[in-house]
Each structure stands twice: as structure tokens, then as C-alpha cells.
């Protein structure tokens, strides 16, 4: 790749990559700009002045339905999903280190949870609850639907982590007289902590933005993506963009905080070890 051809290839691909990044972020940045549209502005350019009018509008009940409530529900649901995903994936990751009866089946079941179309999960859980005579709600059936989406990712990440995890550290700890719990708590856990934070990030963001699986499982009260989807059919003002900007900034914030946490944890571990 040091040849002339190689460098030409580099520039062509670098250009292609830049186009791809532009394609990813271009649309998002326009709604970011348009959410600062003046009070008389519309859904497209040109900007009719600059204001935060539409952000203020977001918090008026009549303008956008139940933004506050759905936002709160989505955050609570996201936190519930994250906690369960991290704990269950970690346990499953530990379990999959040994071969046990049914381990292959369970693993493929987890994978198929990713492959089965979301609308099927949504319909299935909705019908399942209906047949049982239980009323669906975002914190029960909705939570279950989200877990079918976040757990496979968590399990796959933990699977990859433990596949590359040298048992030498645990053997050393055992040789030094550590109990299994001490080995886990002081040796294994600190080493896989950054990956667990990653699993948590996946769990939260996937749940926070989940739409198709929530559709039939949320019950009476909407989560934020359902609320936004409802708005697309009846809201024709830039308040829609303001909402988009707020939730996207929130997602970015979560990602940023998590990545910082991973780096800080990694550095601290590097200093000690």
C-alpha cells in the first residue's frame, strides 16, 4: 500500500468514506438547524429567523400530546432494560464458558431473537398477553419485548469477551487462595467492566429508540418513539424537529458519558495493572 496505486486507492476510498459520513450525518444536521426555525417558519428551508420557539412549544401539553410523560416512561423503561440486560448477559456469558445440556439450543434461541422480524415479536407478545388475559403495559410486555432485542446483543458481546478471556488470571487467583466469589469480584469483574458498560450502553440506547417491538406491547401509555411516530401524522410544524433534536442530543449525551466512563475505567485499570 506504499505504491502510487495504493495512495490513489486511499484517496478514492477516503472520498467515498467522507460521502458516507455526510450521508449519515447530513439529514440529522438539517433537522438540528431547522429546529431553531423562527415562529413563522415551516418544515423546510429557508429559515424564517432564528428562535427557540419550537423548543418552548415542546412543553405545552396541547401542542405535542404527552411529551414529558412519554420521555419519562422511555427513560425508566431504558434503565430497567439496561439493568436486566447487563446482569442476565453477564450470567449467560459465564454459563456459556462451560458446555451444558441445552447450551447450543439456548445460544441459537438468543440469536434467533435477532433474526425474527420485530413485528412478529410485537404481535406475538401482544397475543400471548391477550390469550392469558393480562393487560399489556410498557413496564411488563413492553419490557419483555425490549429484552428480546437487547439481550442477544449483550449475550453476543459477553460471548466474544469470554472467548478471548484467558483463564490464567483466575487460576492465579485460585492458586493464591481466593474463593470463587473473590476471584470473580476482584479478578474477572474488573477486567470485563468496560465491556459491561458497553453492554449497558447498547441496552439503553436500543431500548430508548425501540419502536416496532413496542408498538403492540406498550399498552395504554406511549413510549417516546411511539409518541414521535404518532406526531408524524398530525404535527406539521418544526416542533417535530425540536423533539428530534432533543432526543438525539440526549442519545449523544448518553453515548458520550458512557464512552468517557469506559476510557476512564480503562485508564485507571492500566495505571494499577
Amino acid at each position, binding site marked *: 500500500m506504499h505504491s502510487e496505486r495504493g495512495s490513489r486507492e486511499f484517496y478514492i476510498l477516503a472520498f467515498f*468514506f467522507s460521502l458516507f459520513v455526510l450521508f449519515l450525518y447530513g439529514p440529522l444536521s438539517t433537522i438540528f438547524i431547522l429546529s431553531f426555525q423562527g415562529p413563522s417558519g415551516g418544515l423546510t428551508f429557508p429559515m424564517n429567523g432564528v428562535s427557540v420557539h419550537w423548543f418552548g412549544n415542546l412543553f405545552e401539553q396541547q401542542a405535542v400530546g404527552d411529551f414529558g410523560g412519554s420521555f419519562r416512561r422511555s427513560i425508566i423503561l431504558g434503565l430497567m432494560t439496561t439493568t436486566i440486560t447487563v446482569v442476565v448477559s453477564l450470567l449467560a456469558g459465564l454459563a456459556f464458558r462451560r458446555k451444558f445440556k441445552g447450551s447450543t439450543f439456548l445460544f441459537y434461541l438468543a440469536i434467533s431473537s435477532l433474526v425474527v422480524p420485530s413485528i412478529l415479536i410485537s404481535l406475538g407478545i401482544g397475543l400471548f398477553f391477550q390469550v392469558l388475559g393480562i393487560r399489556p403495559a410498557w413496564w411488563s410486555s413492553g419490557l419483555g419485548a425490549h429484552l428480546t432485542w437487547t439481550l442477544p446483543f449483550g449475550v453476543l458481546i459477553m460471548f466474544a469477551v469470554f472467548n478471548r478471556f484467558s483463564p490464567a488470571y483466575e487460576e492465579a487467583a485460585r492458586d493464591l487462595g481466593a474463593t470463587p466469589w473473590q476471584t470473580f469480584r476482584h479478578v474477572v469483574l474488573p477486567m470485563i467492566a468496560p465491556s459491561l458498560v458497553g453492554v449497558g450502553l447498547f441496552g439503553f440506547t436500543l431500548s430508548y429508540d425501540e419502536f416496532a417491538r413496542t408498538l403492540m406491547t406498550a399498552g395504554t401509555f406511549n413510549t417516546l*418513539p411511539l409518541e414521535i411516530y404518532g406526531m408524524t401524522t398530525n404535527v406539521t410544524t418544526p416542533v417535530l424537529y425540536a423533539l428530534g433534536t432533543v432526543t438525539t442530543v440526549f442519545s449523544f449525551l448518553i453515548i458520550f458519558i458512557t464512552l468517557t466512563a469506559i476510557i476512564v475505567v480503562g485508564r485507571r485499570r492500566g495505571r494499577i495493572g
Partner: protein
Amino acid sequence: MAAIAADDTTTSSESVVRPRHTGKVRRGGASLSSYLQATPLAVILGLFLLLPILTIGMVSFWDYDSVRIYPDFVTFNYTETLGSWVTWKTYLNTIKFTVIVWLLTAVIGFWVAYFLAFHIRSATMQMVLFLICTVPFLTSNIIRMISWVPFLGRNGLINSSLIQLGIVPKALEFLLFSEFAVVLAMVHLYTLFMVTPIFNTLMRIDRSLIEAARDAGASGFQVLTNVIIPLAKPGIAIGSIFVITLVMGDFVTVRFMSGGQSASVGLMMSNQISLLQYPAAAANAVILLIVVLLIVAVILRVVDIRKEL
């Protein structure tokens, strides 16, 4: 994703290729603790994946009227679905979307991953660029769909600049609320599902294989087609499974971006659901599931992805 997470746990991150399965402790020594640790996952997947799908299978044989559904054993949900010309046309349309989106995401995803894996030398830069590609994946799909409106609309950016430049006399109507818009949005939403697994496999390719091919006189193109692409197949296969199942089951993108002018299997199901025709939707769901599983089985037959896990 798995690769980044995994990289953090190894202290010797010098070499990309690592001995595998070192983490397995005492094979075969299944103990009570393994079962206890696997129980929560099994319970959750059993309750919210296995039983719901079995329920769909059961309800697909039930009877219904406009108000409620009745336990029964009838097959007309299937015969009506399979006997209807609309179903077949909808499947054809869905498969058309799937093939187009799959080809586009595979080509774009491969070159993006290739650039990241082989042309970016510093590991930090690689991680930063990879994260730039991954972050939009963690934001709302619906917002990302809406964000095309100011671009593609009748008074959108593309139309107004085309008119200003004198390229077209009046606004192009096909940009928004068309099949073009559906494909564009799907490529926008799903390419990341290709980039990540392909990047993951490309990073594991032993660089000395490429050196060897070059020493043996292979041209850059031959290295690509005879070394890199064959070794990248598992990644391409995993990405394909993701993209194909996402597009096959999609209904939101089709509904929103086509403005109700196009059909897909998912959309047909969601319409039946909103009309409370659950048994019909369930029959459709069973058929869709069979089709999707067949496609996945074919991919798994062609490419062995097990060593990727």
C-alpha cells in the same frame, strides 16, 4: 461491536489474531452453577420469544369476527392469505426492496469497512472513525427517517437547488413518498449492520496472507478478489442476515417514506393488526417467519459463520 468490547479485556492487544477458545474452562464439566447462570436468559427468551411465537402459531388457526377472536381450528387464514393475488404481489415487492437494499448496503458497507481496516493505520484513528459510523445506529430510527423530509420534500433542499441551478424546470415529485425514498431511508438506516460485522472480519485477516499474495505476484485487484473477499465472507453473511431480516419485516420505513403508496409484508400485517384481524395477521406472520428462516438457512449453508462467534 463485539470486537471493541472484547479488545478491552485482553492485556496483550498487539496482535489482531489471537488464540481462540482460551476462555473455555473445564469443558464438559457442567455444574449446577452453569444452569443457574443460564436460567434468567432461558426464562426471558422462553416467555417473550418462544411462547409468543407459539401463540402466533396457535392463533393463526383461530376464527375471528370484527370484535374478537375465537379459539377454533380453521385453515382459512392460510388459504385466504396464500390464495390472494395481493399477498403474492406484496411478497414480490418486499423481496424487491430486500434485494436492492441488500446489494447497496453490502457494496457500501464493504468499502467503508475495507477503508477502515486496511487504509487507516493508527488504531486510535480506526476506533474514532468506526465510532463515527456507529453512533447514528444508537439514535432513533424514526427521527432519522423524518430527517429526510427537509431534503427530499417538494420544497426541500434537493429540489430547490436543482431548480436554482436550472437542471429541472419544476420540483421532482418522486423524491419523497416514493419507493426511491424507501430504499434511500433503508440504506441510511441499515448500512451500519453491514459495516460492523465486515469490519470485524477484515480486522482478523492475517496481514501476512496479503503480503504473501503480493510476493507471489498478485495484483491489488487479485488480492482483493482471491484473498480479502473470500476471507470476509462470514462478515458479509452476518451483515446480510441482519439487513435481509430487517428489510423483510419492515413496516415503518415503508409506510412513512412511501406515504402509503407502496406495500410490504410487514405493512400488510400491521394493517391487519389495526383492523383487529389477529388470526389473519398471525397466519401472515407464520408465513413470513418461514420465508425469513429459509433465507437465513440458505445463507448459513453457503457461508460458515460459526468461527465468527
